[in-house]
């Protein structure tokens, strides 16, 4: 893998699986059926890794502990109608009004962000914060399902490690080798103002949005212990063949090109440059259409990024980033669901033929596997079997 990501031709094209709760459907169970039994749960979740050869896993185990949310009487995450996926109830969220920007001028902006985060937590878990007595009681009730979830994750994590599959972002410990990074504008959109609020603000009050992003960024720096000393980071990576970081792009597809440097790249570079200089590879998990943004990454050191595409035409993206960064792409979930095996294999062959020569290619599907019916499992297995075989020299 290291060869491929360093942009030289590897012995085999590496393949990646980016799955969350869909893994249960692959094992032919629903999440609800195994949720209360940590060992059965772990066994079901990891079956796909037993059956399909993968060289890398984006998330390892990535399941919100739904019973903990239930115990805390929060509907922030709920089990979906397929009894397998988990729904993030963002559409129901009570976001801050536009007056939230005025708070920054009333005092210490970093402290204000801390208070806003506390306020958001209280909105996500309203019952927990009604009274202290009630909150303590709910937390006591949340401990058994929390321990159940820890046991499931430890078991599944150990199994994936035993199979020798590296994980980009360990959703169990919430860590990657280089930091996990949500940009300030993504946080502003997802948590503070919602999509319509944040996108309206970007047109009507861009300066206030920028000030809020700066404050969120400063707060992140003060609370998340990002490292800045390259030599220290190198020491940390001494035993890690390919140290990964993860940046998920949620709101970035909506940022106009003229704002992209100031409202995203500037923060990205400040956090990641020391890690990149120490040898980290940052996996950029794209959501939406981002072709217009990829030129911005080309002044970063060669081979420092793994760029995952979602709804973009991968051949267009390749034209922009080839010889600079690794492209992470392959058949779409739509093709894997509705196409024939031959369609999926033909498209995968086309991708491997086009992107693999010279290295810099990671074979994978386009979107995170989440719901039970996201793909036809037989198509996915046949496609990955083909890629593993055809991608060998």
């Amino acid at each position, binding site marked *: 893998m290291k060869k491929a990501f360093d942009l030289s031709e590897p012995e085999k094209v590496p393949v990646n699986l980016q799955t969350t709760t869909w893994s249960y459907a692959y094992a032919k169970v629903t999440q609800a059926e195994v949720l209360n039994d940590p060992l059965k749960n772990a066994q079901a979740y990891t079956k796909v890794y037993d059956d399909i050869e993968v060289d890398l896993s984006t998330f390892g185990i990535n399941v919100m*502990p739904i019973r*903990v949310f239930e115990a*805390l009487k929060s509907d922030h995450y709920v089990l979906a109608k397929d009894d397998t996926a988990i729904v993030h109830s963002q559409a129901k969220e009570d976001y*801050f*009004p536009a*007056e*939230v920007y*005025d*708070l920054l001028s009333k005092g210490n902006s970093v402290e*204000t962000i801390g*208070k*806003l*985060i*506390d*306020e*958001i*937590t*209280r909105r*996500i*878990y309203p019952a*927990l*914060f009604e009274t*202290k007595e009630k*909150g*303590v*009681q709910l*937390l*006591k009730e*949340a*401990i058994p399902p*929390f*321990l159940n979830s*820890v046991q499931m994750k430890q078991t599944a994590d150990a199994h994936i490690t035993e199979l020798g599959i590296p994980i980009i972002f360990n959703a169990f410990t*919430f860590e990657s080798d280089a930091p996990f990074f949500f940009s300030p504008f993504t946080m502003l959109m*997802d*948590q503070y103002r919602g999509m319509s609020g944040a996108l309206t603000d970007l047109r009507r009050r861009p300066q206030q949005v920028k000030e809020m992003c700066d404050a969120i960024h400063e707060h992140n720096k003060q609370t998340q212990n990002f490292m800045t000393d390259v030599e220290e980071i190198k020491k940390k990576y001494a035993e890690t063949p390919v140290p990964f970081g993860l940046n998920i792009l949620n709101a970035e597809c909506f940022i106009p090109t003229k704002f992209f440097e100031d409202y995203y790249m500037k923060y990205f570079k400040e956090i990641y440059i020391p890690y990149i200089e120490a040898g980290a590879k940052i996996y950029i998990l794209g959501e939406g259409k981002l072709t217009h943004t990829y030129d911005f990454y080309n002044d970063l050191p060669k081979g420092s990024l793994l760029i995952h595409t979602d709804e973009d035409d991968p051949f267009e993206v390749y034209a922009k980033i080839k010889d600079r960064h690794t492209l992470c792409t392959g058949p779409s979930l739509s093709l894997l669901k509705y196409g024939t095996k031959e369609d999926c294999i033909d498209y995968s062959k086309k991708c491997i033929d086009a992107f693999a020569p010279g290295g810099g290619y990671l074979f994978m599907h386009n979107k995170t596997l989440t719901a039970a019916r996201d793909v036809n499992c037989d198509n996915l297995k046949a496609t990955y079997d083909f890629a593993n075989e055809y991608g060998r020299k």
Partner: protein
Amino acid sequence: MELKEHDFTLMEMVQEATSDPALGLPDELKNVVTFGLYAMVSTIL
């Protein structure tokens, strides 16, 4: 818009919950649960 001051914090509640002798959490596990549960609730995603 005003931000309210609150009388108690999440960490205070988590510590009180995990310290309940009725739960019988051994000290080592108590720390794991305290920080794990606190991190889960306070990490807004």
